């Protein structure tokens, strides 16, 4: 089953079409990696799915609800998604209050928040940092907090924009492990933007390869990596594409 259906989606910045996707579906409960070189429109696509920006034409359907230039997702639908930005911005509060933010705005019971926080923090190795001020964290710790902050609300759709860019291998491993667990345990659908093919290979069930705002190829990760039909896709995954 598909959780997202994208139809005739375009986005134009300053007269330049940065995104043009006639059709793309995202399978529910799976990890989809959007790969491609910088400037391919990967982050723009995430911003559109999350409703941060509006498309110029076309629609995105979350299950059956439509989002377009004139239609917005309902607040209830927006709350079923979470987006992790490439740059982890910490709120000027404790690590605990950073991770708890999404639960607090959903008016969740304090005791329940405490339980969820303890679980999430131990998963991501943040238990000792809960009382620390979040703005004093290292890059790797902030990256993990920002992932925990999104995951703790157990979204149906988790969007991640280069969640491990600039992180050391240990932190990358922790975050990738968490992403896999979210899908396995909670059936979370994950859409992760990455320009790291090795990460896409390790994580993804499905691959969407983008170039110049267009989807060049998409499909099951095994097929794309083992038998890419498109030459540009082949060049990218073999590291022969200069960009």
């Amino acid at each position: 089953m598909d959780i997202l259906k994208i139809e005739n989606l375009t986005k134009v910045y300053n007269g330049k079409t940065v995104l043009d996707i006639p059709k793309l579906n995202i399978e529910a409960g799976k990890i989809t990696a959007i790969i491609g070189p910088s400037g391919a429109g990967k982050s723009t696509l995430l911003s559109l799915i999350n409703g941060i920006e509006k498309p110029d034409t076309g629609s995105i359907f979350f299950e059956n609800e439509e989002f377009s230039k004139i239609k917005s997702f309902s607040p209830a639908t927006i709350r079923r998604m979470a987006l992790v930005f490439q740059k982890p911005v910490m709120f000027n509060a404790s690590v605990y209050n950073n991770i708890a933010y999404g639960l607090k705005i959903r008016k969740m019971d304090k005791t329940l928040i405490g339980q969820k926080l303890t679980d999430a923090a131990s998963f991501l190795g943040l238990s000792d940092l809960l009382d620390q001020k979040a703005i004093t964290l290292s890059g790797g710790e902030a990256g993990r907090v920002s992932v925990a902050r999104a995951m703790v609300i157990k979204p149906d759709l988790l969007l991640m924009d280069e969640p491990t860019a600039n992180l050391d291998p240990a932190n990358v491993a922790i975050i990738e492990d968490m992403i896999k667990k979210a899908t396995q345990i909670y059936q979370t659908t994950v859409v992760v933007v990455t320009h790291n093919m090795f990460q896409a290979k390790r994580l993804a069930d499905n691959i969407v390869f983008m170039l110049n705002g267009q989807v060049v190829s998409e499909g099951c990760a095994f097929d794309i990596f083992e038998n890419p039909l498109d030459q540009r896709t082949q060049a990218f995954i073999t590291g022969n594409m200069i960009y």
Partner: protein
Amino acid sequence: MLISLDPELYGIIGLSLKVTLTALFFAALTGIPLGVVLALKRFPGRSILMNIVNSLMSIPPVVVGLVVYILLSNQTGLVGDHRLLFTPTAMIIAQFLLALPLMMGLTSTAILSIDKLVKLTAKSLGATPFQVALKVVSEARFGLYSAMIVVFGRLLSEVGAVMMVGGNIRYMTRVMTTAIALQKGMGEFQTALALGMILLLMAFLINGILEILRNYGRAS
């Protein structure tokens, strides 16, 4: 003077604080939300409004005093029937009008200085527009405390507007600044200087309290 427990002096200090703090309270109550809207909302005429607010931030107090005087005057004023002229209420109104654009302008500057990603992160975690605004305000809290300190300082040291609409009436509308002006006029420089020192001490104490509040906010 302070030690001699002069009741008149304590009355003047009390009125100064009452007028300034009441005006500050109402200016914060209205100016902070308006400043937040100005910073976060996109609406037609926003940049013009921002320009107006920024210009009004440097309006001379005597002009505000004059406008309030005309409005409250029982011959010419729109609200002259309430007989508010030369009362502490008139002084509070004048100071409130003086403080409002300052509060709005400083609030929007503080809000606009917060990283845009804070707003987007809150939104992406499911915050409603109101919750996003609350989060941004909470992130800008140090800037808002600073805004209050600046506005408080401006109001406490203000003399033109309160003189014009208050009239510096003994036991009624005399405040520290108008008392200093009067003492100077009478050639009582020593008393005027002493009052000046007391005014400075008041500013020091209140700023100390606001500073403690600011540090408390930083620690939490």
